[in-house]
């Protein structure tokens, strides 16, 4: 015999256990050793999705249409695969902007709009009422049934005892939730104790359901095959094994899947546990497979229980109660009690989280913004808000549960559990366009979100809630049957003549069409304000941003005023703590050193937003810091600053490149300088060596003459001749070194004029004819009659000619030597060739003969025939005049030294062109 006191005692005992768990988790959280920072706990807390609907209602739905209960769990299984993209983004945004609820999220996305936050709150509260009434109905009727033990008595509709029970259940749950969720104001609205209790409840309801499933399948029947085999023999049950026969039943399945995909994200309690209570993003990794696994496990026995119940019971037993009535019918007391506790667990879990989430929304996004704007209350001047906040939330919890009870009395009894719940699913699905659009589309505007939400909600109300009220007889069926204003096209369940669909599919099609349409259309037509735009960027680009929220405060206030403001909501001690921590982060010693700049105002706003929501926080900060709206000028300034920064970085980039180039140039120049330095050293050592050779001769002969006064006069004359010759060579060498130095340093004077090369070559040949004659070398000049004038310095060109001719003489064999000088006009100037039939220069030496002091031949055994500077000077001169000097030679056959000088006209043109 299951006495009523046992049932009541078990219920309260169970709830006491929940409190103990919550208390323990809260204490661990305060000690910094959180027990909910664990992916398994996170996944289990997500299972708050499985409510009394799942626990009792799935079986009822299965008895009705076979697999119709499944889309509710398949949808979330699919959606959670996308969570990696969607929910991760929502979590990131919420942590950044300190979001406390779904309403806060929407309000914050669309420019911290209090109006939008309020609208979302109203929709959420009204939309969730059927869902809460479902829990009340399930708990109170299961209580009624259990009290009848061992008789199976179904609570009849309109039964006053059932209604009274439901009222008490509502009140008890309200008290329970108040005790649970509103003991103190948490920063960021996180409730560790609650999450731990919810995770525990998820285990209890799963164990209870699996126990009854195993008992029915393997205890009462002989396994899955036995249950289904027996059912297949009854035609009305066999029908359920291939249920997709009616027109639109597959469409209805698809829509149900979509609906539950949205519900798993947009139900306020799911948003609370999945986003707000999320400790770490990576917990999603486990949830992606563990949460679907949980749903699979809790659904495996739904069909056997449904068929078992239909096989065993007469038609009068409500399928929604099979989970409880099956163990009762077998007089299994312990299992009955376990199932009853499991049902309570499923219902309380939902009610606690849902009402806490809703009360936060009501307080932060509906009541507080109104109170704060209500000038006569002068609430902004109040010194302590914590008590007020808690009172508002407690009131909201009681009101929400009483409204749920009210809905239950009006409309709850006409529908099965799942049908009631689906109405709520359709309501929260209205948030999808505004939230998902807001996450991925920067163009979505506040006006668009307002329009979409209002229109979608209105259609939902008309097509789902109105018929629900009408069906329960609260008011006549007139509107449902004949349409609004008597227009057939405006019948709530067949809007615009759309037939053949179930109510939910019908409502979803129209409400989504209206919602998305209005959201997109209004967003496209209207314009966003500056605040909206900055929030839109924050939300959409959350993964690419690294910094803080854009700073829109540009006001002056004092640090102490801000700290006092924070103190009113968080308590003075915690406010001081936060400010000191902030100052530390900024590298300051204490909060006194802080300046009340835009950054600090933002910090204060975010701290407040974590307690009272974004819209209210904005209002509160505005009371101490005269917030000036972002005008066009400010926006332009911000854009200007941004573009300055970009320009600056471009400039830096360019500077950097220039710097790199300059460094490379410098390095090359340095190399060149080193090379030149080495060359100079070489040059000096070579020059001194070359100078010493004639000096040594001069000194030697002078000493002989000095030491031998009685030397033969002929000998003396020869010696004096040698001294003179060596002195001349010395003089020549020094002149040439000076000349070369002048040329190289560009100090030489140039008297450029138009020259007739015929004349110069002729002069040079006749000037050297004496040397040729004395060496026995013939010389021949083949000159055309006229050549075009070239530009140059006459003396220098003559110097080149004389040098080349004397070289030719020097290296031509005495007697048979023959030197030929030719003059030819080329396209780029006038060319002079000096050809000899001397020893020639081998290929490897041809390049070096033009270098300083490089004389071809063995300098050790042969006396040098020149200074070694002649050709170097020649090349310098020719190149300075814009021409080229080169050598063609074969050893033993002679050499041809050629140079080319540019024409005078072209030279002038070139000068004109470069000038």
């Amino acid at each position, binding site marked *: 015999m299951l006495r009523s006191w046992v049932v009541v005692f078990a219920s309260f005992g169970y709830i006491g256990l929940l409190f103990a768990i919550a208390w323990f988790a809260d204490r661990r959280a305060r000690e910094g050793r959180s027990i909910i920072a664990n992916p398994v706990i996170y996944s289990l807390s997500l299972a708050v999705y499985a409510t009394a609907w799942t626990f009792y209602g799935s079986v009822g739905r299965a008895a009705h249409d076979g697999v119709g209960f499944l889309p509710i769990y*398949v949808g979330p*299984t699919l959606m959670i*695969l996308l969570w990696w993209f969607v929910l991760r983004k929502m979590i990131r945004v919420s942590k950044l902007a300190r979001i406390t609820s779904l309403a806060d999220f929407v309000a914050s996305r669309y420019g911290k709009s209090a109006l939008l936050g309020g609208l979302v709150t109203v929709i959420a509260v009204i939309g969730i009422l059927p869902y809460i009434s479902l829990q009340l109905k399930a708990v109170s009727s299961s209580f009624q049934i259990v009290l009848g033990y061992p008789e199976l008595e179904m609570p009849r509709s309109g039964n006053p005892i059932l209604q009274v029970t439901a009222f008490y259940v509502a009140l008890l749950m309200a008290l329970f939730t108040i005790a649970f969720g509103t003991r103190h104001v948490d920063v960021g609205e996180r409730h560790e104790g609650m999450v731990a209790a919810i995770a525990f409840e998820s285990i209890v309801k799963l164990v209870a359901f699996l126990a009854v499933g195993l008992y029915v399948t393997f205890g009462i029947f002989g*396994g899955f095959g036995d249950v289904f085999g027996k059912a*297949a023999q009854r035609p009305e049950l066999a029908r359920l094994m*291939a249920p*997709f026969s009616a027109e639109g039943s597959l469409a209805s399945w698809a829509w149900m*899947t979509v609906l539950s995909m949205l519900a798993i994200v947009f139900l306020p309690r799911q948003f609370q546990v999945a986003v707000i209570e999320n400790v770490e993003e990576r917990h999603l990794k486990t949830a992606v497979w563990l949460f*679907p*696994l949980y749903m699979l496990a809790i659904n495996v026995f739904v069909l056997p229980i449904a068929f078992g119940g239909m096989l065993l019971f007469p038609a009068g037993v409500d399928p929604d109660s099979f989970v409880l009535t099956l163990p009762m019918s077998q007089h299994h007391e312990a299992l009955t009690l376990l199932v009853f506790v499991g049902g309570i667990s499923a219902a309380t879990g939902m009610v606690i989280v849902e009402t806490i989430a809703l009360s936060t929304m009501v307080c932060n996004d509906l009541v507080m913004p109104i109170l704060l704007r209500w000038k006569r209350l002068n609430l902004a001047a109040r010194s302590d808000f914590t008590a007020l906040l808690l009172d508002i939330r407690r009131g909201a919890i009681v009101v929400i549960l009483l409204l749920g009870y009210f809905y239950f009395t009006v409309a709850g009894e006409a529908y099965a559990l799942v049908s009631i719940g689906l109405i709520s699913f359709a309501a929260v699905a209205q948030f999808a366009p505004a939230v998902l659009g807001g996450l991925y589309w920067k163009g979505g505007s506040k006006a668009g979100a307002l329009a979409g939400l209002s229109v979608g909600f209105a259609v939902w109300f008309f097509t789902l809630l109105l018929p629900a009220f009408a069906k329960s007889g609260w008011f006549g069926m007139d509107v449902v049957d004949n349409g609004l204003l008597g227009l057939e096209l405006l019948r709530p369940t067949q809007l615009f003549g759309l037939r053949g669909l179930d109510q939910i599919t019908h409502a979803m099609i129209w409400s989504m069409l209206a919602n998305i349409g209005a959201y997109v259309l209004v967003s496209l037509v209207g314009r966003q304000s500056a605040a909206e735009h900055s929030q839109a960027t924050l939300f959409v680009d959350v993964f690419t941003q690294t910094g803080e929220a854009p700073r829109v405060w540009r006001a002056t206030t004092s640090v102490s005023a801000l700290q006092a403001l924070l103190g009113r909501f968080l308590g003075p001690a915690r406010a001081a703590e936060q400010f000191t921590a902030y100052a530390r982060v900024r590298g300051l010693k204490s909060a006194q050193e802080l300046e009340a700049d835009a950054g600090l105002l933002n910090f204060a706003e975010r701290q407040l937003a974590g307690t009272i929501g974004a819209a209210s926080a904005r209002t509160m900060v505005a009371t101490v810091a005269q917030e000036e709206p972002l005008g066009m000028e400010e926006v332009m300034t911000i854009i200007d600053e941004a573009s300055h920064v970009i320009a600056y970085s471009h400039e830096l980039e360019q500077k950097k490149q220039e710097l790199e180039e300059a460094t490379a140039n410098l390095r090359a120049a340095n190399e060149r300088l080193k090379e030149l330095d080495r060359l100079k050293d070489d040059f000096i050592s070579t020059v001194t060596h070359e100078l010493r050779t004639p000096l040594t001769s001069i000194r030697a002969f002078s000493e002989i003459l000095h030491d031998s006064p009685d030397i033969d006069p002929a000998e003396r004359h020869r010696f004096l001749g040698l001294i003179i010759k060596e002195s001349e060579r010395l003089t020549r060498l020094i002149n040439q070194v000076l000349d070369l130095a002048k040329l190289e340093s560009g100090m030489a004077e140039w008297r450029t004029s138009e020259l007739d090369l015929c004349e110069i070559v002729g002069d040079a040949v006749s000037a050297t004819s004496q040397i040729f004659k004395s060496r026995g070398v013939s010389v021949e000049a083949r000159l055309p009659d006229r050549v075009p004038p070239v530009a140059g310095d006459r003396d220098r060109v003559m110097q080149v000619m004389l040098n080349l001719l004397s070289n030719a003489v020097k290296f031509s064999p005495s007697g048979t030597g023959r030197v030929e000088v030719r003059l030819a006009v080329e396209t780029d100037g006038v060319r002079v060739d000096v050809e000899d039939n001397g020893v020639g220069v081998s290929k490897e030496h041809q390049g070096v003969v033009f270098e300083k002091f490089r004389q071809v031949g063995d300098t050790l055994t042969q006396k040098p025939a020149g200074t070694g500077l002649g050709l170097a000077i020649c090349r310098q001169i020719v190149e300075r005049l814009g021409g080229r000097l080169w050598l063609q030679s074969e050893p033993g056959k002679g050499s041809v030294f050629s140079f080319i000088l540019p024409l005078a006209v072209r030279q002038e043109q070139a000068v004109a062109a470069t000038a």
Partner: protein
Amino acid sequence: MTKTSRKGQQLGGLFLLGCLLFNYPMLAIFNVRETLLGIPLLYSYLFGAWALLIALAYVVMERTE
């Protein structure tokens, strides 16, 4: 390609697979009064496909590379 984006793409692929498995025409194909080991074919298919999807999600998320 980073590990995270690869994981995301694999999950996206699983999502599409799930949409296929739990929709017309797959459901219509299995909507017959046959049994598999005594269990109606449609039920076996639905729970089997569900379990497969979860197993694949487990492999994608927990495999260490």
